[in-house]
Structures are given as structure tokens and as C-alpha cells.
């Protein structure tokens, strides 16, 4: 009887510990989640305040409108430039393809080892490279 009770008590203690640890972890996860969310919300509040005080006020309407118009014009100019650049490259750069470059080789010698140890100072083909263009 006593043995059974001791074993039951042990089980209860372990169960209590598990419940304590998991509920504490859950509580902390909730707290951190809420804090992170509040920081995110504060960011939007700050954006709203700055816009409300500086962007959406009568004295800023003209400069804001002019800026938006200029940015829209810049956007259209860029779009036109990118389209023209694409057409130029398609015609002059890729179709003419003046550079004679060898295609990708297909042969491959399989790697025959599973593990090797090497001395990096012997194997590195860059070891003799010097800093030539240091200012």
C-alpha cells in the first residue's frame, strides 16, 4: 500500500513539475508575443502620428502633392528606361553574342573518396595571390 502511494506521489510530483514548466513556458511565450505585438503596434502609432502632424496638414499639401507627382514621373521615366534598356540588350548584347564562350562541359569524374585530410597551405591554388591593388 505504502509502495503504491509513494509511487503515486512520485508520479504526481513529476506531473506537477511538467505542468509548472509548461504553464510557465506558455505564460512567457504569451508575454513575449504580446510585447512584440505591442512594439509593432507602437511603430504604426508613431507612423500615424508623424503623418498626421507633417503629411496630412494643410500647409504640407502643396509640397506633398508636388513630391508625389515628381515621384510618379520618376517611376514612369524609370519604367520607360528599363524597357528601352531591355530592348537594347536583347538586340545588341545577347543576339550578337560576340564573345566566344565555351558551353558548359558535361563530363564529370566522380569523387572517389569519402573523407580526406589536407594541409590547406599545400592545396590552395590562391595561396600565392598578393594584394596588388591595395590603395
Amino acid at each position: 500500500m505504502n509502495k503504491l502511494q509513494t509511487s503515486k506521489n512520485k508520479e504526481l510530483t513529476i506531473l506537477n513539475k511538467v505542468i509548472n514548466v509548461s504553464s510557465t513556458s506558455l505564460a512567457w511565450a504569451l508575454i513575449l508575443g504580446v510585447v512584440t505585438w505591442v512594439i509593432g503596434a507602437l511603430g504604426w502609432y508613431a507612423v500615424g502620428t508623424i503623418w498626421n502632424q507633417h503629411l496630412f496638414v494643410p500647409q504640407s499639401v502643396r509640397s506633398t502633392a508636388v513630391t508625389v507627382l515628381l515621384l510618379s514621373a520618376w517611376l514612369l521615366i524609370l519604367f520607360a528606361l528599363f524597357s528601352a534598356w531591355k530592348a537594347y540588350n536583347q538586340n545588341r548584347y545577347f543576339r550578337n553574342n560576340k564573345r566566344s564562350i565555351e558551353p558548359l562541359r558535361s563530363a564529370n569524374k566522380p569523387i572517389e573518396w569519402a573523407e580526406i585530410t589536407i594541409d590547406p597551405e599545400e592545396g590552395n591554388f590562391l595561396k600565392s595571390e598578393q594584394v596588388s591593388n591595395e590603395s
Partner: protein
Amino acid sequence: MSLNYWQLFSYYVFLFPLVMSVVYAVGGVYFWFRREKRSEATERTIPTEQWPHVTILVPVHNEGATIQDTMQNLSSLDYPDYDVVFIDDNSVDNSADIIREHLKTAQNFHLIHLSKNVGKAAALNNALTRIGDTPIVVVLDADTTLKSDALKWLTLPFTYQPRLGAVTGNPVARNRKNLLEKIQTAEFASIIGLLKRSQRVMGRVLTVSGCATAYRTDVLIKVGGFSSNSATEDIDITWKLQKAHYEVWFAPKAVAYIEVPASFSSYWKQRERWALGGWHLLRTHKDIFQRWEHRRLWPIYAEFFLSYIWSLLFVFGTATWIVTSIFLAEPAGLNPVPAWTGAVLIFACLFQFGAALLVNRQYDKTLWRAFFYVPWYPLFFYVINALTVVWTAPKGLMGSLNNVGKWQSPARKTVKPLVQG
């Protein structure tokens, strides 16, 4: 009438990011419309036996926390013929033992153990001399996992375009629990995803993503392999390939899940290294202006140079304003408190992220959730990046370049892949 220099600088600090955010957004959407949305119906495909053999190189240095997940991921890729070579750069943890366990069961897994720690670039160069004549190598970071079909998307362009030197993958943040990780998720989509797309529209890219990029092996060897004399070997190899007139493409469908820094200190360290790599780029590749044949690289170099000038002006202008506002009635410098210009820049950031959401949503279904944290991302992107540029300026401009690429892996957490298949 005397010229007010601070007024001039403030125009530059306001206009440069505004103008460039439209360039990134328009370029990104243009690329997406032409190369991603419209090409879906006419997607190229090739028979199984015609896929070229690929060797994946994974440099490892004390990556015991993440290497198990990476190996599991690499053993189940949807690609007919590939080898994986882990290059243990003299790790002092159990990385090599974990890899050895897998060698017994995976026939296409191999391990190179380097007897000295030499850094990522030299480790990769050592491997290049030992992997036979494989036509394509894919360099993968030890904490990066690939979507199952990513290898096909990285390799496919090489089968029809011989001018290609490299194809870079699309890095997507895997860990998104804390605020910093959520902001970086937005940043990766909004900055890196759009930047690469818009640079491809212009014809040249600033850098491949070092975490997942495919290279033509013969071209890689021809340009001298990776350089240890740059803090960022990926930026340097991109410029070496393009200077040798090889194309570098961006494959957005080649999704690579990366682990972004989870703490501020590791985030700062990563950005510090990137900023230092930027200084090294400006130093070591300025010779492009001496040769007309490199003219297509001029706009990318100029834009990068102007972004560094922006960072210097922003930090020194703000510091001047803070100091003079304490001691003078009329402070000089650049006022960092957001007013009308700040309000417009925030609008531009949201517009840019909206464009990123449009072009990247098909590869990252939960990206929209990061939009909630976007108001904080200009603070990180502009302020932290500008500070790292200033912080690394003395070392970047005057420090020795010898073996500057040898660096320690950041602290890793064990994380489960976000999406597979």
C-alpha cells in the same frame, strides 16, 4: 549670399533614399513581371539525364548546432545527380563527427578536413582543387537549407546561357520569432529581393548571396577562385566574374532558408562585416573606371559609392546636430527627428515593402505577417547600416587586406526548417 552646406547635405540625405526606393521598387516589379509572372507559362524544362552534375560545397567551422538539419535537407533534394562536399575548416566542436556519421549512409556525401583554420574563401579554394571536373559548384552556408527544387532553379540557366558565371539564390529568413528576426524578414524581402531584381534589370549585380549560389566551376577557377583578401568573399567573386565579362543572374525560385541573427550583437557583427566588405569593394575594384569595357559596372559601383557617402553624411550630420543643439541656440547639422521629409521617407519604405510583398509572396507565403513590423525597419536599415559604414571606415579604407576574410562563425541556435518541399 553664402552657400548653406548643411542645407545641401540635407537635400541629399532626403532625396537619395527616396529616389533609390523608387528605382528598387520599379526595377523589382519590372523583373517580376517579365521574368517571373509572364514566364510561368513558358517555363523551360529539360529531361532528367541532361541535368549537369552538381557539387555542393559546404564550408563548416564550429557549426555543430545546425549541421544536422543542413545534412538532412541536403540528402533529400529534388535533383538527379549531385555530390555534397563538407569542408571542415578545422572546427573545434563536434561538427566533423556529426558529418562522419552521415558519410556511412549517404554515398554522395564527402568530407574534407583542413588541418588548419583558413577561413571560408581559402577553404572553398582548397575544395575546388579536389572535386574533379564537376561542371557546376553550389556554395552553401552550413546554416542554410534549400527548398527541394532549388538546385534545379540554380542550375537550369547554365544549360542554355554560356555567358553565365554564377546564379544566386533567393534567401528567405527561416527564424522569425523575436522582433529583430521579424524586421530582418521584411528587410531581406524589401532590400535584398528587390535590389537583386532591379540590378538584374540594369544588367549587373552588386553581389551574389554567399549563402546559396551556383558557379560554373571552370569560370570560377579561371578568375582565381575566392579571395581571402576581402571581408565578404561573395561581393568580391561577383565583381571578379563580371569584370571577366561573365553574367551573374538571380534565380528567385531557388529559395534558400537562412538563419538571420537573433541577437543585436550578432546582427551588428554581421552588418559590420558587410559594411567592411563594401569598403573593400570600393578599394579593390575602383579600377573598373580605367577601362571602357567595364562600363556596365559603373552604375552599380557609383550607386554603392553614393550610398556610403549618404551613410557618412547621415551619421556625421546627425552627430553634429546633437552636439550643437546642446551648446548652441541654433543647432547646425542634420535634424534626425522625423518631420515632413521623414514622413515622406516612411511612405517610400512602405511603398517599397509593398512592392517586395508583391514579387516575393509566391516564395514566402507568410511574408505578409512581417508587414506589421515594417515601421521599425527604416530605423534598422538606415541607422544601423549607416553606423556600421562609419564604424568600419578606418579599417576598410586603411587596414590591411591580407587574410581579412578569415572570420569566426556567429553564435547559432538550432532551428527547424520553416518550409520544405
